């Protein structure tokens, strides 16, 4: 059987983590192809329902990347995201999702190598967890 290849949604902010992802590209830093990037203007615009949507649609992991505290392009959007995300993580945990499938990470615009490292690490973490259980059942 082929090795399990997770699909991971990365919701990243335009100003830091998306830029870091571009920089990883410019620097030709290779990482696994399991990441699907959704570009948002700021982590502060992430509604809980986006995360739930991703998991219910079968994402094996959701990675949220924003600017370091103090660096958010919009002052503190990243901090607004923190509680919202920890709440969704707690919620998902209640329904049998491994909380580690949802990761929040600050990656600054100049941190191309960090972007590569976090992608590689997260892919392998999610790989070890196996597929999202929602993949195999009919979601109403």
């Amino acid at each position: 059987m082929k090795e399990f290849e997770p699909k991971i949604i990365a919701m990243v902010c335009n100003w830091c983590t998306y830029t870091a992802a571009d920089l990883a590209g410019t620097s030709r830093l290779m990482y696994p192809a399991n990441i699907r990037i959704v570009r948002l203007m700021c982590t502060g615009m992430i509604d809980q329902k986006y995360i739930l949507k991703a998991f219910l649609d079968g994402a094996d992991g959701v990675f949220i990347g924003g600017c370091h505290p103090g660096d958010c392009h919009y002052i503190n959007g990243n901090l607004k995201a923190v509680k919202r995300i920890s709440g969704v993580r707690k919620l998902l945990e209640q329904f049998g999702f491994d909380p580690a499938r949802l990761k929040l990470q600050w990656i600054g615009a100049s941190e191309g190598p960090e972007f590569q490292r976090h992608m590689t690490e997260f892919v392998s973490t999610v790989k070890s967890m196996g597929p999202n259980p929602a993949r195999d059942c009919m979601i109403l």
Partner: protein
Amino acid sequence: MKYEQPAIGVYICHCGMNIAPKVDVENVAAFAAALEHVVVARDYKFMCSSPGQSLIIKDIRERGLNRIIVASCSPRMHEKTFRKACEQAGINPHYLQMANIREQISWVTKDSNDATAKAKDQVAAAVARVVYHAPLTSLEIPVKKSMVVVGGGIAGIQAALTAAEAGYNVHLVEREPSIGGHMAKFDKTFPTLDCAACIMTPKMVEAAQHPDITLHTYSEVASVEGFVGNFKVGIRQKPRYIDASKCTGCGVCTTKCPSKVISEFDQGLTFRKAIYSPFPQAIPNTPVIDRENCLYFTKGRCRACEKFCEAHAIAFDQKEEILTVEAGSIIIATGFQTFDPTPLTQYGYGRYPEVYTSLEFERINNATGPTAGKLLMKNGKPPEKVAIIHCVGSRDSRYHAYCSRVCCMVSMKFAHLVREKTNAEVWEFYIDIRSPGKLYEEFYSRVQEEGVHMVRGRVAEVTDIPENAKNEGRLTVVAENTLTRRILRVPVDMVLLGVGLEPAKGADDIGRMLGVQRDKDGWFNELHAKLAPVKTAMSGIFLAGCCQGPKDIPDTVAQASAAAGEAVSLLAKGTVRTLAEISYIDPDLCSGCKTCIEVCPYTAIGFDEGRRVAVVNEALCKGCGSCAAACPSSAAAIRHFSGRQIMEEMEALLL
């Protein structure tokens, strides 16, 4: 909401050899052609080239496309380009969506099949999303024809003069009693050694006399509201306790005042009075009363100044005032402060009287300084041997990891001045010599030719314990000469510390008020290190001088002129376009909970008390989406980043 039946064109770029062959572009185009609503899908060598763009334009016109997907490099690179092409072809530029298949796929993926599969997903996502794009427009708002410059050092003065010359009103805000900044404290400036006062004073006077410049000295920025083109800046005028309109600047008051206070301007080396002008050429020359040290304010008696002031300008009852000015743009020019070497106890600063910071030495050297420009020690005698230590607090991970850029040149300037004014021997201790400016290397050679001892090595210690009795009373500098691998013990009379530069105190408050980010060392962040070195991420706010990072006077002046140029270009254009990708609050959905008002970092949301709904101010909104995420009913949504668009994109990625 869908605005019309979508007819989508998909364009996959090869980017020469950058995307293809890693991504099988033909395969991706074929895949795209089969997606819902897609009318044409093509691959092409260089989409951003003008034939590439023409391809899109032609298809829009001939095939009636109303949505465009370009799968190529990062949208941060070419989104503007392709939006323009859409506009040129007659469709709304926001009907474009890009898929980043270069930076985020072909360049970072090893396996070609993986890369192709990922590219298909990202293209499918873009197609799913673009269906729900809306035609967006933005507002054009007039720009106020004036600007505020914060900080009246050489940077601020230069910027103010440049803009005023172009005919714009400038408010120059300086927190000290006089403009001038650091440069006003120097005697000579490297590399040409021209007299600082001779080049600085005329600039200061010119700024003061310019009809289009309003000086606000002894003032600070109290508040900033608004947005590019339409800022409202609150300026807090601290009370001088002197009626500037009456004061003639005769200075009688300062001679009569009995209260002696340590002079900040002279770096604590002399005294001033409680009523004072920081230095003789101060602009404006209206003195200020330092409330903390004034006998009248502290003890309720004296009023000597009042008695002697013939102009009756003393005004003990003056109050702080807040003045609000309008500005189309703002320039930050808050400069730097020098590193305090006290924590580096091995250098003995504060313990040994003959250890000076570079700024103190500038004053000693200055004709208006404590020794009237004579190079004397505290005992009144000239030194016979002087050590100069480079990189104090700079290039040191415990303090500042960065290079302060000017200290090498400052130190060599000092070496030259010591040699010129005395017969003293000069020993310089450096790590590397950094002299990469016009005529700087030449200056370095000149100093070497003047017989200065250059020792490559970080100083381990400055001590008052001599190696032999003959040097009793002198200081000894201990260092390893890393070129000869020998430990040196050099007895000297005077030690000068080439202290590093750090951001001016209060820069954090300015940053917060203006919403401009600072880097990890506290310097203001430019928008782009290479391509936008004087812009900031806040449109309409620019940087000049050392507030952005250590630099010398030529660079400061050049940058200040550039900042003024950017600011003037904005004001000259006369209007700014608001962002199109901003929040919209659906009044039918809004329940009036004001949550969005609470979370909006730019106070961009108001409340309509009549309808009891929140309303977005389109000029203030920056589209951060805080409101959209916080509003549970999605009454607030960001145009171009709506829940619908984001979820469609995600769903397609997970198909």
